[in-house]
């Protein structure tokens, strides 16, 4: 019959015949683009060494990805941006003074063990960059918690001296300053009078909140914390403002959905507001939540790491639970734990819970009626 003859030029395919112009590749590169402002701010603040750290982790990631894909006999798809993004995030999560072997080993760990050992892109159980950061934090705790003062030197001079090694001015992140002040209760001795008083008395009498503790070292305002002008931290996390700019672009493109960041940051605000005052001898609902959302890796974590599509629940309900869980764990670590920072731990923990959340948070078909048991 005539129309049995397939015209060779025609494509036969299943519907739909129109697609949205958005691919996995576009998504990855756009996320990278949105991270760049904060990255460059980090470079500007911490100098040449930070550039080396980020570049080395990106290159290591790409290499590891290429080699493993070759071993697994798959198409070497490093141009899809996912390994680049992992490397960039590993680099941004490093303190600016770590020796270069730490980002390099962390990147190999992220790509090799976390990503490809479990099946590669789309199959990994945790965000590779987060897992690598937590791994580095526990493997080289001291080096990973040694911070440099931002804008501490001439950019050029810094780049020359960084080759020789240990010359960075030691500093501490806002969260660490507050944590150690609270934990040790010795802040008073060093900073003020030298007289030994009890923690409770001390806080009640002098400090009304974490900002007061910060201000004993340097004059810091919320404004400084928001723009990252005077705060130590990881390379990529210091400018909340620039991270927010990138995140807003991603949200406008609907690549980052609002559910996780809102649930996460909302929970942090809520818990910090309720319980934050207790440390300072105040009652409930008097905490300084602005301090908590402007410090640490919360902005980087909530907008760029917790929203990683692969390792978060697939339904909106599930993602809200994920965000709330992250917020609770972050605040538990910050208030009660030994570490000053809780963002990466909380995201890693909730990544592990994701399959369980997916299992229980199913949506029902429209008009679904429960079948009655006979």
């Amino acid at each position: 019959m005539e129309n049995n003859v397939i015209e060779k030029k025609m494509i036969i395919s299943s519907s739909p015949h129109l697609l949205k112009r958005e691919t996995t590749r576009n998504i990855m590169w756009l996320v990278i683009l949105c991270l760049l402002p904060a990255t460059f701010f980090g470079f500007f603040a911490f100098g040449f060494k930070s550039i080396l750290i980020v570049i080395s982790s990106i290159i290591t990631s790409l290499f590891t990805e290429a080699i493993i894909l070759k071993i697994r006999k798959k198409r070497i798809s490093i141009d899809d941006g996912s390994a680049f993004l992992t490397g960039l995030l590993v680099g941004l999560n490093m303190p600016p003074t770590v020796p270069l072997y730490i980002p390099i080993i962390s990147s190999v760990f992220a790509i090799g063990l976390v990503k490809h050992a479990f099946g590669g892109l789309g199959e990994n159980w945790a965000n590779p960059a987060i897992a690598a950061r937590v791994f580095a934090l526990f493997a080289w705790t001291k080096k990973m918690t040694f911070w440099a003062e931002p804008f501490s030197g001439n950019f050029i001079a810094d780049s020359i001296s960084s080759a020789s090694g240990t010359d960075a001015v030691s500093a501490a992140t806002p969260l660490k300053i507050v944590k150690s002040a609270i934990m040790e209760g010795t802040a008073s001795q060093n900073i003020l009078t030298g007289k030994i008083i009890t923690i409770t008395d001390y806080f009640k009498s002098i400090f009304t909140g974490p900002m007061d503790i910060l201000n004993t070292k340097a004059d810091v305002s919320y404004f400084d914390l928001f723009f990252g002008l005077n705060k130590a931290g990881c390379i990529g996390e210091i400018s909340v403002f620039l991270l927010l700019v990138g995140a807003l672009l991603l949200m406008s493109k609907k690549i980052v959905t609002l559910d996780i960041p809102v649930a996460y940051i909302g929970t942090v605000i809520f818990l910090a507001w309720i319980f934050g005052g207790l440390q300072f001898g105040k009652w409930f609902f008097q905490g300084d939540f602005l301090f908590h959302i402007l410090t640490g890796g919360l902005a980087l974590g909530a907008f760029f790491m917790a929203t990683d599509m692969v390792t978060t629940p697939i339904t909106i309900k599930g993602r809200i639970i994920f965000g709330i869980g992250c917020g609770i764990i972050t605040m538990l670590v910050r208030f009660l734990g030994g570490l000053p920072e809780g963002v990466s731990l909380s995201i890693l923990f909730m990544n592990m819970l994701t399959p369980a959340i997916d299992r229980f948070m199913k949506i029902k078909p429209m008009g679904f009626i429960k079948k009655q048991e006979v």
Partner: protein
Amino acid sequence: MLFSKNFGRGGIHPEEYKYLTSSKKIENADVPNVAYIPVSQHIGAPAEVVVEIGQKVEEGQLIAKAKGFISANVHSSIPGKVIAIEDKYISIGKKSTVVVIELDGEFKKSGKIVQLLDWRSKTRDDLLKIIKNYGVVGLGGATFPTHVKLTIPKEKKVDTFVINGAECEPFITGDHRLMIDKSLDLLEGASIIKEILDVENIYLAIEENKKDAIKRLKALCINRYPIKITPLRTRYPQGDEKQIIKAVTGRIVPVEKIPLEVGVVVCNVGTVVAIKDAIVNDRPLIERIVTISGSGIVEPKNLKIKIGTLIKDVIEECGGLKEGVKKVIVGGPMMGFTQMGLDVPVTKGCSAILAFTEEEISEFKANSICINCGKCISACAFGLMPTVINRFIKYKKYKEALDSGLMYCKECGCCSWGCPARIPLVQNFKMGKDLIQKLKIL
């Protein structure tokens, strides 16, 4: 508008491309020299051929009779001689018996003034009988026999009738033009259905991208027809029966149930005009409005085409195909079928003929594996979890796929449209459904 009615969860808004034909009036297409009329143009049992080879037929003569409860009559679209009865591929990619009629003789219905029927003096059963005899089926695409839909069982009560003018698929503008060019026919058809169903509320739901149609119909309805024109937010798949009911009335039709369950009947605007033509103008369903569009068509048009015309001839009338056409689709771009050749006839369910070049299909090449983004889940208007069902089908867990609602999938294509990994979800679901039916797991 932000607050206009729509169906709520899920849905997408693909690029519309309606500008290609939305301002072009409906024209009558050329009469074919040979018409290939399939006997299976509707959902349900194929009709039974009642003519013989060599027999002379009139325009509008019955050539195949409905067989079984859900089936529809088929009529000759041209006067002439039956030269063959053969099996032929039709546009949905399946074979059907086709009655081949060669043009010969005089058109006794087209272009002639007929005695208009005063339908108000007829009983409900008489009207339903005419609709049945004249082979009217749903022209929105599903082609469900209309007389079956309008016959309400005694135990059910219907209080709302929704006319579906959403036309949510990109490119298609046939219904849009129909609402403007034949608005009086449409409103009269609606009055007939009001008589048949005896309902209080009639809604005519139109998406907001058809502002001129909304304006015109609103002006016509004032004080004359008790029809509520309901603008809807432009959103795909709003033209689906269950979605439009949810958008207009807020009622949710239970799964595996028909709209009658919630007291609603839905008809496409094309169907309403076909009902009016059948009852008032004494014309069986032998032609329909088709949008011919896409970047591969020289001159996109809205044509009124005799059923059985080959799409080859239709495309020829629109200036032919451009260089580099890669795909020819019968139906909308979201749910239509690609064609192997151009030798397939236009049927009652054919709403559009689209020819795509590289421009539209270039996006299919990129591919990765599922990255769990959940975009398919938030796009599904039916509350399914496409990625989960897809995984079950991939690993041959058909029982679990069914429990996750595979059979509730309408194959609207929202999930595939937005998938950044370019996973052919709809294709996998279609295959899964076929396999399950073959393996009789149900």
